[in-house]
């Protein structure tokens, strides 16, 4: 008799036969197989007509679902493509196109134990309330101090990775929200250490700068559905406009900026370092670990950047804009946590950063939704998928220079509300390298044609 069981994120096989997927493990004296291949191993033994004692899966009990999920036409076709692909694959849809509902419908139709993997704690809350509302069941959660497994369980990427040895055999369907994260070297091990035969990946931004998205077909399944913002904008999503406001640095800020940048550029010139691509910059960062002078140069550059990003003039410009659009639901984005708190204190508006306790975060978002708050200032935490239903204006006070963050910040505003026209305004310092950063970002987005025109 051949026996197959789960061992800390892998499968062990006892018996006189191997499989094309296994490898002999001399440490324990059994064949060891990646949990990812669970489905393939079962198929292999079935085709070979070999009896198998399979104790791999330890599934939590099923619960009764009372689903209210109704899909739109494009959501129906997305789900159909996924199902025809053997309940595997990646769906690419723009933010706010209702990816959650497609996943919930998939759970409903498969009626099976499901793990939903999400990037942030906020998203755990959001998914759980959606599951409660639309499928009519309580869900389990792993991450942020909670550790309850139920038929439908939501976990962060971090927890799913760290707990793979205990959770890997407890689900038959695994849904990766913002699946582009899965391609990172450590998170990809989630896909490898879980046995779930059915897999769904959801994202608005399939491609990664490092090309690692090419790993996703092996981990989750092929890209089975892809629709860009343009195709949906106006029809299902609110269109939006984009404006750029240039602000000059105050004279003393400009002087400080020039001085710090001079130190940085001087070092580069002296060492003949060219800075053309993000990779060049990474190489430079490595040098700073060895050479204290390189580190000084880096610190000078960071200080210059901080001056440009946090310029008082920008706050003044922001005050004017806020004054002019006082009654609109507003989100303010900035990269620096310090600046978030500065703005929160200056304008007396709620702030959300990575430091904000979970309860307060929930309370702020809830009040924003209800209209008790009308403006939130935030650093990167709201970047992905968090539902902020009807914000109509977004301000960007500093950018990260990365395409994905940019698109998803746009996405934050793309909520379909009757008669709404969302606006995104970026406030950029003039005569600094930040203009270049912002330009690069816009440029890339345009090329990919994901951006809807005015």
């Amino acid at each position, binding site marked *: 008799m051949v026996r197959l069981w789960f*061992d*800390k994120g892998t499968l062990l096989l006892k018996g006189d036969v191997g499989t094309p997927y296994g490898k002999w493990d001399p440490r324990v004296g059994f064949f060891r197989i990646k949990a990812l291949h669970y489905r393939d191993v079962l198929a292999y033994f079935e085709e070979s007509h070999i009896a198998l004692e399979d104790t791999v899966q330890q599934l939590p009990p099923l619960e009764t679902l009372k689903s209210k999920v109704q899909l739109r036409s494009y959501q129906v076709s997305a789900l159909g493509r996924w199902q025809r692909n053997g309940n595997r694959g990646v769906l690419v849809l723009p933010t706010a196109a209702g990816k959650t509902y497609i996943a919930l419908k998939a759970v409903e139709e498969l009626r099976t134990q499901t793990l939903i993997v999400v990037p942030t704690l906020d998203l755990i809350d959001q998914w759980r309330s959606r599951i409660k509302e639309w499928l009519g069941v309580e869900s389990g959660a792993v991450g942020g101090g909670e550790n309850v497994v139920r038929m439908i369980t939501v976990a962060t990427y971090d927890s799913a990775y760290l707990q793979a040895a205990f959770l890997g055999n407890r689900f038959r369907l695994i849904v990766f929200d913002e699946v582009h994260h899965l391609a990172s070297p450590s998170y990809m091990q989630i896909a490898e250490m879980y046995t779930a035969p059915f897999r769904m990946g959801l994202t608005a931004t399939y491609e990664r700068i490092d090309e690692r998205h090419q790993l996703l077909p092996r981990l989750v399944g092929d890209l089975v559905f892809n629709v860009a913002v343009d195709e949906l904008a106006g029809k299902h999503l609110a269109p939006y406009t984009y404006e750029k406001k240039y602000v000059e640095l105050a004279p003393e800020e400009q002087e400080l900026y020039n001085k710090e940048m001079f130190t940085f550029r001087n070092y580069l010139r002296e060492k003949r370092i060219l800075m053309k691509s993000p990779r060049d910059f990474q190489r430079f960062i490595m040098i700073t670990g060895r050479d204290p002078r390189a580190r000084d140069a880096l610190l000078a550059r960071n200080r210059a950047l901080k001056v440009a990003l946090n310029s008082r003039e920008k706050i003044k410009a922001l005050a004017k804009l806020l004054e002019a659009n006082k009654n609109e639901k507003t989100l303010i984005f900035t990269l620096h946590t310090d600046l978030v708190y500065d703005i929160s204190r200056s304008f007396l508006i709620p702030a959300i950063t990575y430091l904000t306790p979970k309860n307060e975060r929930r309370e702020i978002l809830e009040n924003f939704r209800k209209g008790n708050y009308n403006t939130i200032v935030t650093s990167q935490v709201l970047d992905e998928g968090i539902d902020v239903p009807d914000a109509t204006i977004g301000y960007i006070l500093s950018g990260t220079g990365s395409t994905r963050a940019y698109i998803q910040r746009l996405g934050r505003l793309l909520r379909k509300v009757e008669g709404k026209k969302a606006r995104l305004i970026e406030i950029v310092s003039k005569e600094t390298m930040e203009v270049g950063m912002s330009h690069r970002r816009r440029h890339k987005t345009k090329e990919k044609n994901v951006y809807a025109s005015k």
Partner: protein
Amino acid sequence: MLPSSLLTVWRRKGIIQPRYAKPSTENLQVANWLIEAYNHSIGKKKSILKKAVDDLECEGYDYRLVRGLSLLLDRRSIFRCTSQVEPPALRQKIFKATGRTGPATTPEQRKNIIRKIAYKLEISSEELEDSMYADLESELILKDFKPIAAQDLLEKYNLSLAQTLLFDSTELRFTVSANWQKIFFKTKRLGLIYDAYKDNEIWVKIDGPASLFKLTRRYGTAIAKLLPTIISSPKWTVEAKILWKFTNEIHTFKLESWKHSPLFGDKQAVEAYDSVVEEDFSKRFTALGSSWQLKREPEPVIAGKYVLIPDFSFEREGAKLYMEVVGFWTTEYLMRKIEKLKKTEDRMLVAVDETLACERMSKLDRQQSLNIIYYRSKIPLPPILRYLEDSYREVRMQQAEFLKNLNVTFTEPVIKFEEFAKRMGVSTEVVRAVLAEKNPSNYIMLPDSLIRKDKLEQLKKKLDQQIAEKGKLAFTEAVKIAQTEKVDLTSAIQTLGYKIIWRGINTENAEIIKLD
């Protein structure tokens, strides 16, 4: 453990080591300075403390050392929010105030809102501003700090550096002089897999289940957590493979107790007994004063693909036996244990407590139960001694067999049995018996050694000469002469054809005469 951004290493020819902070005057000074800064900051904001730490960095000390030490000190500190009003509740009030009307875009609007809320809460506007974000990390107040000596801080830092480097490890090998049980227990709890092999010492390789498929840093954190347990043993050697993240090259990271334990400080673990039964047995056995050396928690024994750490080992002149003490058990457990034990090449004794059976004792196969000793409450000594003696006899027979078949030609003038036995790893008795039987030509058998015939003749000649010259020979004199030939006179005296004439108990007065 520290964030890897604070790790600093040197790499050369495939070798990697953290840059440790040796207890130099300068490093001790930095440590002391920081400890003082924490001591003096009790009652102050964390941001002020951190500013002081930043200043130290700017003075040209390595920022990674300064921040690393500071982080370790943070872990000895208690930071608290001391605000009169609850900051989250206060914020809610403030935000609700601007929620309907929109952000306070002018200083006047802002002032008004703050004044109104402060009035309601019966605090001042300044207090309100201070309390608004008093629960933020940087605004917390240092309430208490557990002081530490500078030297100890550096030791903790060095251990943390080593652990941080291990985050990037793909596997770790080690050998230790004690603590095996604790290390294996922890290894299992951390979800790691071990594999043992013998290379003079017992070496254990540690990695995780998925390491079979590819080099992965996945188990690095768990491996790092294991390090303190390994190095709490008196002697250790640790060798890890580090997959260096910036270059993706494999490096060797080696730690040896003789070299590195001063860096980490002395943290030896106290040996504790698993149970009263074991402690009691150990006391009674030692009290017997037998020629067996009893050792608690000896080095592990390899049993096929498993590693066992027996509870006791008994050692006597090249013979070594182990004993496992089984607490609660089921028949299945016992069978499995015996299956495991069968795979060892070592002799195993299993002591099983009858009263702790979790089910009715079933008849274990007679043959299998051969070396099982059942007991109630106390491990009995007689059956164990009997077993030890039996085994010893067996071992001796094996040794004799081995020696007999051994092709040795002696050339040395004198072969001491004890030394030879030690060299061969067998008992002295066996050596004596086998050599008596072999009776190598050119040698004469003495009670404790073999002596070459010509050597003996030479000695005899010397002694005879002395007697002829002086008429008599004092015993002490004769001993000295024999010593120059490296012969123990008392054991050789009969074979030489002499005897000792005692006059009283004083050896000074003893004399040697010819037998006939």
